[in-house]
């Protein structure tokens, strides 16, 4: 693959998924796209880039984007955001939404489902305190492949051991051969949707809580600001956003403000809140 071809591939990935691949990530492209080449019977990365430039195969373009996205996740990843949900956010919204008894949660980069299922299990555990409540958990991702895995709810032994308390494994999973499948009642709590964050997501409606963790790090500053502004636009006035441990809105957007008492938790900045916009964010 020549430098020009590598640059063309980087431009394609940025346009399609927002993924800002730095010039030193050539090794990543080579390691991740070799399986795509094999699958589509393409003999080299140069050939793959030519095919993408020719725009002959939507399936190839999609597979290329999917192969380059990072899907690492695990149940209750980083623990803190889930402690926050249980100890701070759930009590807050149980009180604030007592009249409507409705709570809407969005996991914006759900990957193989561990994050939305972790929240669903916490909500199931809290169910005795929430009679008559209607909960929506919308979980989206850019990869249809990981969404299919998420919907099926099968996890291997390593996946169910990373962060998942054993009591929840026993309670909500069934052993199927050497795999573990999450219970149908937990799967039914999550509504999976294909979604590319660079595109308009107003159609998802308004959310009380948004988890958008460890995805914005792959975007350039302009796109990051744009996505955060559009997330703020679909958050309830008292909505909450949780970002990854290494992510911040500081210096990126003033649409959101950090909760000084809770690391990684953001709310809408009332002072700078823009009117609700429905335009697709440009970069």
């Amino acid at each position: 693959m020549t430098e020009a071809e590598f640059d063309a591939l980087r431009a394609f990935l940025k346009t399609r998924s927002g993924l800002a691949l730095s010039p030193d990530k050539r090794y990543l492209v080579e390691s991740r796209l070799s399986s795509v080449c094999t699958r589509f019977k393409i003999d080299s990365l140069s050939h793959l880039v030519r095919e993408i430039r020719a725009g002959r195969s939507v399936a190839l373009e999609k597979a290329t984007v999917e192969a380059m996205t990072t899907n690492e996740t695990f149940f209750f990843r980083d623990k803190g955001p889930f402690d926050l949900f249980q100890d701070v956010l759930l009590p807050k919204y149980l009180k604030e939404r007592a009249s409507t008894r409705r709570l809407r949660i969005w996991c914006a980069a759900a990957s193989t489902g561990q994050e939305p299922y972790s929240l669903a299990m916490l909500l199931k555990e809290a169910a005795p305190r929430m009679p008559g409540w209607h909960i929506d958990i919308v979980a989206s991702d850019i990869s249809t492949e990981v969404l299919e895995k998420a919907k099926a709810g099968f996890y291997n032994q390593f996946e169910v051991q990373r962060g998942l308390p054993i009591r929840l494994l026993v309670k909500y999973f069934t052993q199927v051969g050497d795999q573990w499948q999450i219970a149908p009642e937990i799967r039914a709590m999550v509504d999976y949707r294909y979604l590319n964050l660079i595109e308009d997501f107003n159609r998802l409606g308004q959310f009380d809580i948004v988890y958008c963790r460890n995805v914005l790090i792959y975007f350039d500053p302009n796109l990051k600001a744009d996505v955060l502004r559009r997330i703020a636009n679909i958050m309830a006035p008292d909505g909450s956003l949780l970002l990854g441990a290494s992510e911040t809105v500081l210096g990126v957007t003033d649409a959101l403000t950090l909760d000084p008492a809770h690391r990684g938790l953001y709310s809408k900045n009332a002072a700078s809140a823009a009117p609700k916009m429905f335009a697709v964010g440009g970069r």
Partner: protein
Amino acid sequence: MNYCLIIDDSRVIRKVSREVAEGLSFRVAEAENGEVGLQACQAEMPDVILLDWNMPVMDGYSFLKHLRATPEGQAPKVVFCTTENDIDRITRALDAGADEYIMKPFDRDILAAKFQELGVLPASHSA
């Protein structure tokens, strides 16, 4: 420094577990079966115990029953670490007083996640 006792009849597993636990800043001791493990607990009660199930002399399940039968034996967090991975075994372990359960094979991330979940991870390694 948090103290971790590893009870396993496999020298290899003890070595691997020790490396992981020491990497997480634990002070580590080893025992090759439940009986030796109980003696170690009498000498100094650990913060956390990594416990195999199948061992000669005294198995992990019997060790746990003995440990939890004493008032001071309520304190340590006990993590079963075993190849027994069927749901009935896991349930038995939890009923006997285990706090967590790891199915072998495991890696550093799994062990660190379990320690964090149990709140025994030394401060320098907590999130």
